[in-house]
């Protein structure tokens, strides 16, 4: 554990040292992941579905703030769909506007969750989002998670309808919407993600030792059980190995986030009791774990180097050498 804490300290110091450079790098990576995910999902426009365009846009996203990047990603989706159907492009643009005016404008931070979910689902790491959200937010965050899941399955419906139809009229929109509402996997994901968020949120508010770790494990286990049971009941096929691997990786990712955010020393718990005029208090104080990272200083002892730097010493050394020879 001490090693991990030292590692955390080193990581924090490293980040503090190169903040401006690392921030740019993270923005580039986030931009690249976002644009390449859109390209992999609905990359219809041949001009934009290129690695060079993804790199160029990712480089551009280094200069953008988070909200501008979200706007550009949404615009990128609309441009791709516009290439296939103007009606569908208008519909998806209207859906983004509804999400913006109806929700994201009031809670701008939740907009990041909305966009993180559709990007994380194909990578099988979306299972970590309800766990992390349950750890750091309130159950209200179920709303942006649901929007994110909805966007992903809407784009999937667009993809599957467009692949079998040459129509570009309103009928295409109707077909997409019918497919979207008939998608049982979406409902399963919505229910499971909402339940996992609530379970993690309830558990992390308990007064137990290692409560965050317990909440993460409970979240991952309930995620696996709920998905398997509901999918079995509704006869939905799922790839078990990527799902299990994704859940384990997500749980590890959630633990890492939690560890970097807050590490508590449960061995040093103190239970206090005191009173004032109105109440009698039972207080449980858990100290935070903090370890000062040892700074390594290498002291070089090199006689030759030393004598070269000190001319007087060198002369003295030469003299004694001559005397010995004589």
């Amino acid at each position, binding site marked *: 554990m001490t090693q991990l804490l030292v590692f955390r300290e080193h990581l924090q110091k490293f980040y503090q040292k190169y903040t401006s450079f690392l921030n740019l790098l993270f923005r580039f990576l986030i931009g690249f992941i976002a644009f390449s995910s859109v390209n992999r999902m609905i990359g219809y426009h041949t001009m934009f579905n290129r690695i060079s365009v993804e790199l160029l846009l990712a480089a551009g996203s280094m200069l953008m703030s988070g909200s501008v990047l979200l706007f550009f990603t949404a615009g990128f989706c609309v441009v791709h769909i516009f290439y296939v159907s103007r*009606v569908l492009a208008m*519909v998806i643009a*209207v*859906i983004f*506007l*509804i999400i913006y*005016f*109806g929700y994201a*404008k*009031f809670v701008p931070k939740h907009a990041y969750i909305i966009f993180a979910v559709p990007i994380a689902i194909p990578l099988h790491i979306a299972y970590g989002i309800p766990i992390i959200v349950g750890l750091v937010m309130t159950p209200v965050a179920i709303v942006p998670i649901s929007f994110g899941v909805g966007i992903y399955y809407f784009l999937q419906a667009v993809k599957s309808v467009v692949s079998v139809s040459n129509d570009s009229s*309103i009928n295409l*929109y*109707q077909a997409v*919407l019918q497919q979207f509402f008939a998608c049982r996997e979406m409902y399963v994901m919505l229910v499971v993600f909402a339940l996992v968020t609530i379970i993690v949120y309830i558990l992390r508010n308990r007064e137990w030792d290692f409560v965050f770790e317990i909440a993460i494990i409970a979240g991952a286990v309930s995620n696996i059980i709920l998905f398997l049971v509901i999918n079995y009941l509704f006869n939905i096929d799922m790839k078990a190995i990527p799902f299990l691997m994704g859940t384990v990786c997500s749980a590890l990712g959630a633990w890492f986030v939690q560890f970097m955010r807050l590490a508590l020393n449960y061995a040093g718990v103190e239970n206090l009791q005191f009173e004032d005029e109105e109440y009698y208090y039972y207080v449980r104080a858990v100290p935070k774990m903090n370890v000062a990272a040892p700074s390594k200083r290498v002291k070089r002892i090199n006689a030759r180097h030393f004598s070269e730097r000190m001319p007087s010493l060198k002369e003295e050394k030469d003299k004694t050498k001559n005397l010995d020879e004589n």
Partner: protein
Amino acid sequence: MVNEEKLRIMTQIALDETKRHKTEIKEGGYYKLDYIRAHIISVVWNLTLAYVLILFLIALYNADYIFVNVASLEYDRLGFIVLGIYVGILVLGILFSYFHFKKEYAKNLFILKGYYTNLKKLDEFYTQNQNKEETGDDTIIGV
């Protein structure tokens, strides 16, 4: 000479104004009721826009049906339902935002306390400097 304490306070103020509490400082000049009212108006406007867009999507989905039955549609009933849902959404939105922004206002006040304390400290620095300049012996004795 550079005054470290003054520099520290100025850095804190600059950080508060440009990054940490930009919105809170911008909205800090409002009275409680005005603050809540302004936000509720914004909520009503945004919810209305979102609702109109949802209606547009529903109408687009049922475009064929609407064009065929444009003469026989029950507009009174339809209007009642559309308006009823709109009013319901607005009432819920206003209620929720009233309590939410009331809480936000209290939170903002707490945040602004620190900012104003720093401003006061900085003001004291300048007043001290001014007093020093005024009391300093800079009288010119005539020949």
